[in-house]
């Protein structure tokens, strides 16, 4: 099955997760403007599905029945070959507040997965709650971005992507970033 993506080694593939249609469109545009390849989904469950991770493989205690079935689930230019694309995801950027599985829940599941635990995960939130932020960073998120996410925030993601791409990641090199990007309020 022919893949529509140009397998250029310098192009990174980002999986974006956000239940807000507007924010999804925005993050997609931000990422594409920065020359990232993007797949945008509207829930944590769809993200796991895209990666090829069965919900049941991960931890229990999910309630993903509240998904709005009317929203478009996946928007991607590329062919839906989940296995290939799942392994080709270089970074996951997810909203924190989502119905059912939160971005934090998704983070935990990714980090528990042997196949995907080394994929860098970035969390976005409209709320500046220090305890929330530290918890995410402590539990493996690379960055925590305050919404609305801007082009300058997206430009900061590239170093994490380069790190995430390498198959020989030395986990002791992982930096826990406590830098916050505050948008003017």
């Amino acid at each position, binding site marked *: 099955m022919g893949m529509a993506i140009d397998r250029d080694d310098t192009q990174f593939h980002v999986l974006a997760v956000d239940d*807000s*249609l*507007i*924010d999804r*469109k*925005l993050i997609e*545009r*931000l990422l594409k*403007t920065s020359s990232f390849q993007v797949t945008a989904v509207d829930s944590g469950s769809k993200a796991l599905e895209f990666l090829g991770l069965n919900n049941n493989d991960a931890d229990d205690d999910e309630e993903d029945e509240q998904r709005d079935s009317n929203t478009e689930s996946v928007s991607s230019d590329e062919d839906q070959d989940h296995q290939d694309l799942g392994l080709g995801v270089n970074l996951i950027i997810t909203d924190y*507040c989502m119905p059912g599985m939160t971005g934090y829940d998704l983070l935990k599941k990714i980090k528990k997965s042997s196949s995907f635990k080394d994929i860098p995960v970035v969390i976005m939130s*409209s709320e500046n709650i220090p305890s929330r932020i530290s918890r995410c960073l402590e539990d493996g998120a690379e960055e925590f971005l305050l*919404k*609305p996410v*801007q*082009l300058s925030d997206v430009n900061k993601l590239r170093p994490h992507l380069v790190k995430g791409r390498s198959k020989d990641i030395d986990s002791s090199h992982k930096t826990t970033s406590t830098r916050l990007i505050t*948008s*003017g309020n």
Partner: protein
Amino acid sequence: MERNPMRRQLASMRKSLFDQGYLDEQFMELEQLLDDANPNFVEEVVTLYYRDSARLILNLDRALERRPLDFSKLDGLMHQFKGSSSSIGAKKVKAESTLFREYCKSGNAEGCMRTFQQLKKEYATLRKKLETYFQLARQIGPMESANRPK
């Protein structure tokens, strides 16, 4: 630089949207994302915002009719509205939604209802102004908006 009178008008409209506090710098962030391949990006996002807002306003209206008020549900809905308003730079609408959420947290029904009426007014005004703005922009042609930084 705006020799074309329509462009001058567009630029002036845009400036007043910022000066009068209807829009904040996030709108400019959206404009930064315009390019030849996506010349209508801002208008597309704003159109999504109208659609999303209509849904939220309807749900909020319904929720505000219930007795007793479910403040948690109201707060949840307004959290979404605040988020999308913030994402497009809708400054006044965002301010009202913040105020509404504060009333939810303190369980102030009267405050919620009053603020919601105000929010709807602000939203309607913004929508009207933006529709006029984009209408003019479209008339001018598939060029970038008057003050796109380059």
